[in-house]
C-alpha cells in the first residue's frame, strides 16, 4: 500500500532529522568547549566533564587550571548559550504557530523588550523580592515580557479586528521603541559606569555568567518547554483559525493562555540571563519547518535542539571573530536574522495567501 510506505518513509526521515539534530547539538557543545584562546585537548575535556558529573577519576594528570577553564568558565557558557538559544527558538516557534504568523519572534513582537525593561529595573535598582532571592531577576523579566505582550495584543485589537500579520509586527515595533525610550531614560539617570554595563548587557551576551545564571534559566526552560510541547496539537489546530480550532474541540482560550504563558516564560528567562538576543526565534523555526513541514509535533522539539546548537555557534563566532575582544552575541544573530526577516517579509508580501 503506498500510504503505509510513505508513512514509513516519513517516520524514517524524521528519525534521521532528530538524530542529526542531536549530533549537531553535541558537536557544537564540544566545539564550544574546545575552541578558545587556550587549547585543551578533547580527551581532557571529556575527562573533566566525566570527573565532575559522575565523579570518575579516569586520568589524574589533568592540570588544575584546565579543569577550572572547562568546568567553571566554558561549560556554563556553552550550556547557557544552549539554554538561551533553545528557549528563544522554541518560544519563537510557539508564537508563530499561535499567531499564524511566520514573522513572529519574541524580539519582533516586543516581548523581549518588555522582559529587558523588567531586567534593567531589577539590575539598576538592585531589587530583590523577599522569598525569591536571585530569582527576582528572571521573575520580573518574565512579568515584563508578559505585560508587553498583552499591551501589544491590546494595541492590535484596537487597530484592527483581524490579527493581521503586519499589524502585530508594527505594534511590536511601537512597543519596542517605547520601551527602548524608557530604558534609555533609566540609563541616563545613572552614572557612566552602570550605563556602559547596561548597554553592553542589552546587546546580549552569554559570557562571564557562570553556573549561577545556568541555574536561573534551567527551571524556567524546563517548565516552559513542557508546557509548549504538550500543546503541540493545539498549535496545529490553530492553523485553521481560532474559530475553526474551537469547532474541532480545542479549548482555544485555555490553550492560548498556556501557550502565551509558556512562551513568555522562556523569553523572559532568556532575556534575564543574557540580555536581548534577537531573531533566533525567527530564523530557527523557519529553517526547521523547511525540513520537517509545519507539524508542531516536530517543529517544537527540533527548534529547541537546533536553536540551542545555533546559539553555541553564534557565541563561538562572537568571541573568536575579533579576538581577543568579544562581540556581543546579539550582533551576530541580528546580522544573520535581520536579512532573513526581510526576506520572509518580502516573500509574504509577494505571495499573498502563500504562508510559510
Amino acid at each position, binding site marked *: 500500500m503506498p500510504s503505509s510506505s510513505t508513512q514509513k518513509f516519513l517516520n524514517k526521515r524524521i528519525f534521521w532529522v532528530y538524530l542529526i539534530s542531536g549530533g549537531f547539538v553535541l558537536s557544537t557543545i564540544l566545539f564550544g568547549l574546545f575552541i578558545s584562546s587556550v587549547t585543551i585537548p578533547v580527551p581532557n575535556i571529556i575527562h573533566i566533564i566525566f570527573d565532575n558529573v559522575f565523579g570518575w577519576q579516569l586520568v589524574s594528570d589533568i592540570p588544575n587550571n584546565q579543569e577550572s577553564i572547562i568546568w567553571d568558565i566554558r561549560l556554563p557558557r556553552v550550556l547557557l548559550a544552549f539554554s538561551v538559544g533553545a528557549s528563544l527558538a522554541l518560544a519563537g516557534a510557539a508564537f508563530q504557530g499561535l499567531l499564524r504568523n511566520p514573522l513572529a519572534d519574541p524580539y519582533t513582537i516586543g516581548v523581549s523588550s518588555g522582559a529587558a525593561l523588567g531586567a534593567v529595573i531589577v539590575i539598576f535598582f538592585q531589587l530583590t523580592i523577599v522569598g525569591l532571592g536571585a530569582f527576582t531577576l528572571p521573575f520580573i523579566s518574565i512579568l515584563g515580557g508578559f505585560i508587553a505582550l498583552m499591551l501589544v495584543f491590546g494595541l492590535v485589537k484596537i487597530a484592527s479586528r483581524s490579527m493581521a500579520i503586519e499589524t502585530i509586527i508594527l505594534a511590536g515595533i511601537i512597543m519596542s521603541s517605547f520601551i527602548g525610550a524608557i530604558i534609555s531614560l533609566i540609563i541616563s539617570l545613572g552614572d557612566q559606569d552602570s550605563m556602559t554595563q547596561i548597554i553592553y548587557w542589552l546587546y546580549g551576551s552569554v559570557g562571564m555568567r557562570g553556573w549561577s545564571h545556568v541555574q536561573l534559566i534551567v527551571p524556567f526552560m524546563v517548565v516552559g518547554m513542557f508546557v509548549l510541547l504538550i500543546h503541540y496539537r493545539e498549535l496545529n489546530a490553530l492553523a485553521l483559525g481560532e474559530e475553526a480550532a474551537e469547532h474541532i474541540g480545542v479549548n482555544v482560550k485555555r490553550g492560548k493562555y498556556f501557550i502565551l504563558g509558556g512562551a513568555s516564560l522562556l523569553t523572559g528567562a532568556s532575556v534575564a540571563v543574557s540580555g536581548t538576543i534577537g531573531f533566533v526565534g525567527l530564523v530557527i523555526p523557519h529553517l526547521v519547518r523547511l525540513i520537517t513541514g509545519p507539524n508542531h509535533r516536530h517543529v517544537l522539539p527540533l527548534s529547541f535542539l537546533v536553536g540551542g546548537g545555533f546559539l553555541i555557534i553564534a557565541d563561538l563566532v562572537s568571541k573568536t571573530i575579533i579576538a581577543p575582544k568579544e562581540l556581543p552575541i546579539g550582533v551576530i544573530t541580528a546580522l544573520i536574522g535581520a536579512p532573513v526577516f526581510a526576506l520572509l517579509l518580502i516573500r509574504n508580501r509577494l505571495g499573498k495567501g502563500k*504562508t510559510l
Partner: protein
Amino acid sequence: MIQVKDLEGGYTTNRPIIRGVDFKIGKGEFFGLLGPNGSGKTTLFKLITGSLPMKTGEIAIDGQLISKLSPLEKAKQMAVLTQEAHVSFDFTVEEIVSLGRYAFQKGVFKSLSKNDRMIIEEVMELANVVCYRDTQFRLLSGGEKQRVLLAKALAQQPKVLLLDEPTNHLDVKHSFYMLDLLKRWQREHKLTIFAILHDLNVASLYADRVALLNKGTFQKVGGVDILRNEQQLEDVYEVKVTAHSHPHVPKPQLLMTPNLEEPKAKKELNESFKLEQNEGFIHLEFDEPLRTISNSVIGEGIQWLKHFCNFHVNKNYDGGDPIDDMENWMSNWGIPTELSAGMMTAVQLEDMVLVNKTEHGMQLVVMVTAGVGNAVDITSSGMDERINQIGTINTMVFIDAHLTDGALVNACTSATEAKTKALHDLGVKDPFTNTHATGTSTDSILIGVTQRGEKTPYAGSGTVVGKAIGNAVYEATKKATVKSKSRLDRR
C-alpha cells in the same frame, strides 16, 4: 436532534440581530436556512456553533444544552464547515483531515490511534482527496480545499453538521459533487445537516425543509414547496421571482426577472419578420424573439425563439432521426438551431398560405401548409396501418399580444378547433372510417407571441385573441387544404 427555543442574540447585547427564533430539526434531516444578506443567517449560525453568545433562549442537541458542553464534548456531537478556507503554514491535506480527530485522541501523547487512521482514510476516500494526501493544502483549488475541509468535518463523525454556504466559491460541478456527497452521507449515517444556502434553487433540490429568515425572525418554515410562494420571496428578496417546477425532480425552481425597462420595438408585427421561401424550406425570421409554445420537431415546449422553419421532405422520408436531420439542414442554411422551431412536411411548399390579419387592433400572422392524405377522425377507434401518405397540417400563429403560459395553451386549443372546423366545412373525411376528419395523424402547431401590451390570461373562444386566432387559422387552413388538394387532383 436540534432544538432552538426563543433564541435572541447578536454581536452586541443591546441590539440583537436574531430576535426570537424557534425551530426543531429532526434526526437525519437536511435543514436549509435561507434569507437575504443581512437577515442574520450567519449570526444565527454562529449562535448555534457557540461562536457568539446568546442573549436569551436555549439551543439543545440531542437534549443536551450546548451552552453546558465543553468544546471537546461539542466537537464530538457536531462539526462545522464554513466558507473560509484559509490554513496557515504548509500543512498537508492528510494533516488537515487528521485535525478532525482532535477531540477523540487519548493518552499522554495524544497520537492517532489505528481507529483514527481508519476513519481518516475513509473520509478522504469519500471526499475524493486521497490523491492529494501529501499535497500542501494551499496549493489546492477552491473546490479541492472545500472537499478537504469537508473530510475534516466528517472525520469528527458528527451527529450534526453545520454548514455556512458550503458551495459559495465553487462552480456548478464542484457544488453538486459536494452536495451529492453530503446527501449520501446524510442518508447513510442519519446525519443531521443545518446549512446556510444562498442559492434558492440549490436549497430546493437538496434540503428537506427550509426556513426563510428575514430581519432576524423566521418568515416561514416548512418543506421546500414553501418556495412556490412567489409573493413571499419577492417581499423578502425584493426581486421579481417566478416559481416553476424542475423538469425532472418534483421540486420548485425559481426564476428571477431583472428589473430592466427594455424598450420594445414599436414595429408592426407583419413588418418585423423576413420570409424566405423555396422548394426546400420556408423560413420566417423575426427581429425579436417570440414567446412560443409548440410541438414542433425542434423547439418544442415553451420557449423564446426567433426562427421558424417548415422543411419539405420527400414522401418516402424514413424519419429515423428527425431531430438530427433537421439540425443538419438548419446548420446547412445557417439557421441557429437553439433559437429555432422546425417542422417538416411532404406537402409542396408553394402551397403554403400566409394570412395577415388585424382584428380589434390586434395583428396576427398565420402560416399553414396542409395535406389531408392522412386525415384522421381522432374520435374513431382503430389505428390506420397505412403509412407514407402525403398529408400533415403545419400551423404557425404569430400574435402581437401578451399571453400567460395558460393563455398559450388556450391559444393552441383555439387554433386546433378552428382547424378542425375548416376540415369539417371542406368535407375532409377519414378514409379509413369514412367519418369527418378532425386533423391528420402528424399535425404540428406553434403559437408565437410578442409579449407586448396588456397581459392576457385567456385566449379561448370567449376572448378577442381567441376569436382572432380562430378566424385567421380557419381561413388559412381552408385555403391551404384546397390548394394542395387541387394540386393532387390535377395530377
